[in-house]
Structure formats: C-alpha cells, structure tokens
C-alpha cells in the first residue's frame, strides 16, 4: 500500500498562478485514475505560495512513502502527466521538478517561526497539535508562574519584530507589575509596510502558533482578553485566523479555565480599515476603540495606559509566533543564534528585482550579501545590484558597498536603515533612487494622520520638492533643504510615522547624492525612470511594423503603416511604457 500525499500551494499567490485549478486537476486526475490519494491543502503563505518561494508557483509536493518530490511552475495541463508518470508509475517527471534555485533558497535559511509553515495544514488544529502545538501553553499554564514565564522570555533575548526591537520580556514584566482590574494583550497584525507580507504569511501558514503565543503572553501579564488587530486587506489570513480561534475555543485552549488551569482568556479579531498609521501602538488602540486612528503622545506608554486606559501589551505577529518555540526549546536554545544584542531569527519578505522573490527566515546577523545572492539567487536578469531597501517607509536604502553589513537591529541602524518589520526590496541599476524616495514620501504623505504639523505639512513639502526634482525642475539648494527639513521633521513629529518618514530621503541622499545632482543639474534621470525626463522613440531599423505598439498605446500617440517603421508623437505620448512592454523586437527605446 502506497501512502501518497499531494500538497498544493493555496495562497493568493498560488491561486493567482492557478493553484486552485491545479488542485482541482489533481483531484480529477486522481479520481479518474482510481487511486486512493489524499489531496490536502498544504500550508501556504497567502499570496506568496508555499514555503515562501512564490516566484516558482504553483509549487506542488508529491510525497510517496515519505519520499518528497517538489514540482515548480505547475499548470493544470501538466497535472495529468505528473499523475500518470509519478503517481502511477513512480517515475518523477524530471523536467518539471524544482531545481537548484529552489533548494538553495531553502537550504540557506534557518526556520523557527516558519518551521511549521508550509508543511502543516493551517486550517487543521490537529495538524498543529501533531507538531507539539499547544504543549508550550500547557506547560506554562500548568507548571510555571507568570513571573517564570516572563523571565524565560527575558532570558531568550527576544525583541519585538514589529520594527522598534523593544525587549519583549521587559514589556511583559512592566505590564505584569501593573495593578489593574483589566489588562489586555494585542497582537499587531496591521502589517502596513508596502513590500512586507511576513505577518500575513505567518497567520496564514500557522495561525495557532500566534494564538499560543498570545495565551502565554496573556498569562504572563495577567490579561483576561486579547485582540488581534489585522488588516482587512488580508482576507485569507482573517478567515484562517477566525477558524483557528473557533477551533482553539472548542478544544478549550481559549475560554474559561484553559486546559483546566483556572486561567481565563479569550481573543477577539478586530479588522483594520485601511490606515497605515494604525500600526503605531496608540493609533492602533484608538482604532480598536472605534475612533480615528490618530496617535497620541507617549508617555504614558500603553503598558501603563493602553486600551480603554488599561495596561496593554502590544506584540507583533512574528514576535508572538516565536514564543511557543522558545518555551518548548528553551531560552538558551533561542539565544544561541543571532548576535549578542539581536537574538533569534528574523523573517523577511525578499522582493523587488531579485530572482528568488519570497518569504525567508534567517538568523539575525547574517550578512545582506548572503540573503541576496545565496538565498535570493542574485539579481533578476543578471542586472547590476544597486541597493536594498529595508524597513519600508521608515527605513533606508543600503548600497552595494555595504552589502556585508550584518542584518541585525544595531548594524542596520548604523548604516541609516532599520530592520523594521522585515520588508526587503532589492533595487537594480534600472531603479531611480530619487524616484524611490518620492515613492515612499507619497506613501507617508497619504498615510499621515494629519494631527501634527511636521508630518502633515512637512511630508507634503518634502514630496513636492522631490516631485519637482524628478520633473527636472529641481533647484540648487534643494538637496540641502531636503536634508535640513528632514532632520527637523524627524525631531519634531509626534509619532513614529513622522519621526521616520524622512529616512528614505536621507538615506538616498547619503548614498546616491549624485543621482539627485544629475536630476537637478543635468535634468537627467540616470536610471531612465522619471517620466518627465524621458522620451520614448521607435528605432526605425529595428521596427518591423507589426502594429503591436500602435494597438497598445492608450494615447494613440503611435502612427505607422503595416510593415513599415512606426513613430511616436512625443507631444501626445503619455510615457506609459505600454509600447516598450509589448515590443518583441526591442525597437522602442527610452532615454
């Protein structure tokens, strides 16, 4: 009797690549072939696909008697061949099997938080229990005091994974010492950084680990109620989380006297409504209370006065997901990897111009170069690496000559960026750094709550200066003005959003000042990105007159007879690049 298991990635990334059709195809083929195989949904990282490497989606594992073969780029039409040759005849389809890239991507990582993501079914509580799930909560509630629990987390050296890196144990300790009739623990799943999807992946891949972390945290601080504040833009994560909470309640991992311990605790889900600033603790609290998410000044910090004025601990998803593993394997185990001040691992969303784009987990302190070249497989199209942007709108760009910087809280801060929540966007020679700064300022300008002057008007003015530079209207002195006002905005703003919003400007000026100067002095965009400094033209020698560009042009700026070189009217051209994209003969040039 052969034990056959087919695991298909079913995240939105996987679904976008046709995951559900692939799954359906397997079900159909297997049924037709009359084999008893169970086709189960594999834990997938929503929108990323399984195991983080969604660039290779749809990924499918075929496991026969514990021998696993992974297929990449599976399309529904390939399924019948896999079923016929591999499942029926036990001969894997060699040319469809995932190659070295796939294995390098995984082999160079070190997984704690993601260790069960991608291998268990996130919608099945028994799958989590089968990998020792909820044993940590049982141990803590059954045999440890809240102080011992806090002490364990303190000794592990775990620091907040949301961006600031505050020691989690210390936060719990302060909250634990507060005397109050009510305390709260909040899981911050309002992952707002553009280019980041770690928290969503963890919740989608292993929601029970987050719940277990919250139970342990609640016990340590004495909270009777918890909230998960999660973005509504993550429908699959919300759905899986809700199911997981229901299942946990049914098994008495939540509710009255959890597992007979006498400890009561339950968790509610609160959906965000589309405001980046609600990732900020005090704004998040305001949002849970049903108000506009406007931050308030700290102190008092939420551990003293938080939700409804009561002591409140706010931990990020990844932070909480670490907790059960720390309890299970010990503080010393966790502290044994990472650097002196940054313990453990960190999950990153590696995206942008990188070959193996996806979700990764690495020990703190690993050099950037290893992430980008060993795990990420280098730059897409083998173009020149220019910079890696870490920490999203609060972070900075790290240039090529600093690629050996270790990735930990202190080292990244030293080079003018931050670890942040874990977004890592790789930029290549075709990316304009002024444009990148402008992009982030557009973001922060739009997400500023408007409460304090430096952020409300300051980000707008920063953006306007960047806009004029990218339009070729930059003036001498603009760079200095940007620098000066950036420093003031950082110092004078009320919350973390404004205090970090100028970072992308400062770091790009620091490392790529020459690009700013080229825009201002020469009215040129060296990377060929800034629209107003570009012209699109057809190279008559290369143009075959196929008409593809003509049809694609939304502005009707292209004219030309069939089979004769076409031409672009620059006065009509809106520089959308559609012609550039559709031309198969590289006959459209931008300059």
């Amino acid at each position, binding site marked *: 009797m052969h034990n056959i298991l087919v695991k298909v990635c079913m995240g939105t990334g996987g679904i976008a690549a046709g995951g559900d059709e692939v799954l359906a195809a397997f079900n159909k083929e297997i049924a037709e072939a009359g084999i008893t195989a169970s086709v189960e949904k594999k834990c997938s990282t929503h929108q990323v696909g399984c195991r983080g490497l969604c660039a290779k989606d749809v990924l499918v594992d075929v496991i026969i008697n514990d021998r696993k073969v992974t297929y990449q780029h599976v399309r529904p039409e390939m399924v019948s061949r896999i079923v016929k040759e591999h499942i029926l005849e036990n001969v894997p389809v060699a040319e469809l099997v995932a190659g070295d890239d796939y294995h390098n991507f995984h082999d160079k990582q070190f997984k704690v938080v993601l260790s069960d993501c991608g291998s268990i079914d996130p919608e099945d509580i028994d799958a989590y229990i089968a990998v020792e799930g909820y044993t940590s909560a049982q141990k803590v509630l059954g045999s440890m005091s809240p102080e011992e629990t806090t002490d364990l987390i303190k000794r592990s050296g775990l620091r907040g994974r949301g961006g600031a890196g505050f020691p989690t144990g210390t936060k719990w300790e302060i909250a634990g010492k507060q005397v109050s009739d009510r305390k709260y623990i909040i899981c911050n799943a309002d992952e707002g950084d553009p280019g980041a999807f770690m928290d969503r992946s963890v919740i989608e891949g292993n929601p029970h680990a987050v719940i277990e972390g919250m139970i342990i945290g609640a016990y340590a601080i004495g909270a009777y109620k918890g909230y998960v504040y999660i973005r509504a833009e993550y429908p699959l994560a919300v759905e899986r989380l809700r199911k997981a909470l229901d299942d946990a309640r049914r098994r008495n991992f939540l509710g009255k006297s959890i597992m007979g311990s006498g400890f009561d605790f339950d968790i509610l889900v609160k959906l965000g409504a589309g*405001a980046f600033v609600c990732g900020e603790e005090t704004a998040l609290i305001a949002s849970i209370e049903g108000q506009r998410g406007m931050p308030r*000044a700290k102190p008092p910090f939420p551990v003293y006065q938080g939700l409804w004025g009561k002591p409140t601990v706010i931990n990020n998803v990844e932070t909480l997901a670490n907790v059960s593993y720390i309890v299970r394997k010990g503080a010393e185990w966790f502290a044994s990897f990472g650097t002196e001040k940054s313990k453990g691992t960190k999950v990153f969303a590696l995206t942008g111009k990188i070959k193996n784009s996806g979700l990764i987990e690495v020990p703190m302190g690993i050099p950037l170069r290893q992430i980008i070249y060993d795990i990420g497989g280098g730059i897409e199209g083998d173009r020149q690496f220019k910079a890696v942007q870490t920490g999203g709108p609060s972070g900075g760009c790290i240039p090529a000559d600093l690629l050996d910087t270790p990735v930990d809280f202190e080292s990244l801060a030293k080079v003018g960026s931050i670890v942040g929540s874990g977004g890592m966007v790789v930029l290549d020679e075709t990316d304009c750094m002024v444009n990148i700064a402008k992009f982030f300022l557009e973001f922060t300008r739009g997400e500023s709550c408007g*409460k304090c*002057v430096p952020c409300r008007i300051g*980000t707008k*003015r920063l953006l306007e200066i960047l806009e004029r530079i990218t339009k070729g209207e930059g003036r001498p002195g603009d760079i200095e003005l940007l620098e000066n006002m950036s420093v003031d905005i950082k*110092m*004078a703003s*009320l919350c973390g959003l404004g205090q970090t919003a100028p970072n992308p400007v400062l770091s790009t000026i620091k490392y790529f000042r020459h690009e700013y100067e080229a825009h201002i002095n020469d009215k040129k965009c060296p990377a060929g990105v800034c629209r107003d400094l570009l012209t699109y033209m057809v190279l008559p020698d290369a143009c075959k007159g196929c008409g593809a560009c003509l049809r694609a042009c939304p502005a009707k700026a292209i004219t030309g007879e069939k089979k004769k070189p076409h031409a672009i009217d620059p006065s009509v051209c809106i520089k959308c690049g559609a012609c550039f994209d559709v031309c198969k003969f590289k006959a459209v040039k931008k300059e």
Partner: protein
Amino acid sequence: MVTLKINNIEAVVPEGTTVLEAARKAGIYIPALCQHPKLTPFGGCRLCLVEIKGMPRPVTSCTTPAAEGMEVATTSPVIERLRRTVLELILSDHPNDCMVCEQAGSCTLQELAYEYGIRENRFEGERRKYARKDGNPFIERDLEKCIMCGRCVKICDEVQGVEAIEFGYRGFDAKICTPFEEDLDCEFCGQCVSVCPTGALTGKLWSKKGRQLGVREVDSTCPYCGTGCMLTYHVKDNEIVRVTSKEDGLNEGLLCVKGRFAYKYVNSPDRLRKPLIKKDGVFVETSWDDALDLIADKLKEVKAEHGPDAIAGLSSARCTNEENYAFQKFIRAAIGTNNVDHCARL
C-alpha cells in the same frame, strides 16, 4: 506635589500637572497653538517642544506630566530651530492675508510669526483651497486658515457636549468637518470661535466692522438671562462690533448664541427706547413717570374692584435673582396675592 526644575528654576506643582502648566505657573513662557487650559492635551502643533534631561528627543510640554526631579529646558538653539521650522510649515499652508483678516491683531499665529520674525519662508507649495462657504448664519468658517489644532473640536465635545464637528480625512487633506460637510447646524454657542487661535473661525457679524483701531473694549454682564455671564463688548463709534468673553469671569469665557452673537438689537432702529402708551388705538411715546403712574392706577383699580387675587405677576428668566426677588415681593406685599410666577425659559 512634585518638584522639578525648569530652566534651572525650581517649581513645585501638584501631581498630574503638565510641564507646560508648571512652566506657565512659574512665569516661564512656552509658545503653543493647540494647547488650551480647558481642554485635554493634544500635542499637535509641536511648538511647545522642550528638552527634558534623559529623554532621547524633544517632547511636547503640553502632554508630558511633570515628574519629580525632572530637568526641563524650554529653549535651546535646537528647540528654537524646530519651532521656527514648524511655524514656517504652518505658514506655507496659510493664506497669510492678515491685511484683510478679521482676526488680525488677536491671532496667535500672527503673533508667533511676528515673534519669530518670519518674513521669508523656506517652504512653498500647494496650499489647501476650499471653495465652499458655510451658509450658517453666525460662524464664518474659513478652513484655509485652519491649522488643525483641534481646539474647536475639543471644546465642542469636551465642554459644550455637542460634537457638531470632527476631524475629517487625514494628512494634508485633513480638515474639520461637519457631518457630510454640510452647513454647520448646531447651537451656535460660538465656543469654537472663542478658542480658535487663527482667523479660521470668526463671527459672521464681525465682518468689516472693525478690529482694534478705534475699538474700545467694555466689560459688562450679559443682559439676556439671570446667569450673569461676563462679556466684553467691542465698541466702535458707539456700535457693538464684536462680543467676546474673558477667561477669568464666572462663566470662564463661555457664552451662548445670544450673548455671543445676538447683539444687533442694541443698535436696532426697531428697539424701544421709551415707554409707549396706546391712545385711541395708536402707541404714543411717553415718559417713564407717566407710564408707571398709569400702571399703578390700573393695578389699584383692578385690586379695588376684584380683589388682589384677580392680579397675577409673571416675571422673566432674563431678570437677575435680585430683580425676581423684588418682583415677587412687590406682588405679594404690595398687591397682596401669591399669584406670581416666572417664565423660567430663555
């Protein structure tokens, strides 16, 4: 009590006092636009930033509670630079039309710009433009002049309990909104006008009537009801051009729509200035003596013919306690009836 040092001056204040309040108590000036003693701290304008020893960055003194042993510096080159930047930013998104602004001369923003000598501004760019005018009868809302200090929202909510307005939108597009941005529809107490530090909220009746020059301020008591709110008439050429109220009165600067805006009757041509007696179906002006004599005669006549209980007295809530006391005394003692009441309405 906590003891702290502000600019090396020792201050002893009750627990819960903010650093800003402590400084003001000690006679130390800190600029501020959004802070208001009646309202909960906001921390939005960032002008009251101070340096506190041991804190990694400047903090707003209006939100920071004074703590034992705290060492505060209310000014430093960095603090002054930040305040200047903040002011320049505000002014870069302001009409700067002080020449024609109703609030010129009593505008906190103008005063701060003057204090910091901001003639040139490093910042320029898009300014908020709002075409729509609020059609309500009393309060001019010029949102382009609004600096989003939130005082109006807070006083409407925290003091008046009306919640007619709220912050709307966010970031640079943020503005103070009524529901669905319709015309303001509230009690029109004008508390919001009184706390607005700029010309964003003014009285519609004020328009072009005069600002400071030639305007005399006369402290008085509101004649509308017995509460006795203190108010200040701004008088130009013997005409009331504006009503305000000082914070130190028993009403702490708060007024109602009548006291604040219903002052036009004073100069109204329809206003009765002398008693009138109807003779042959026509009202004829007369003297107070004649009028009072007539009333006395009529009362006596009725009392003699029908007894005192045929007469009743109804007084007004607009009268003071003393006036009402005198009135009931008159009805009871002089007329001899207990038929006396009071409208108890405003």
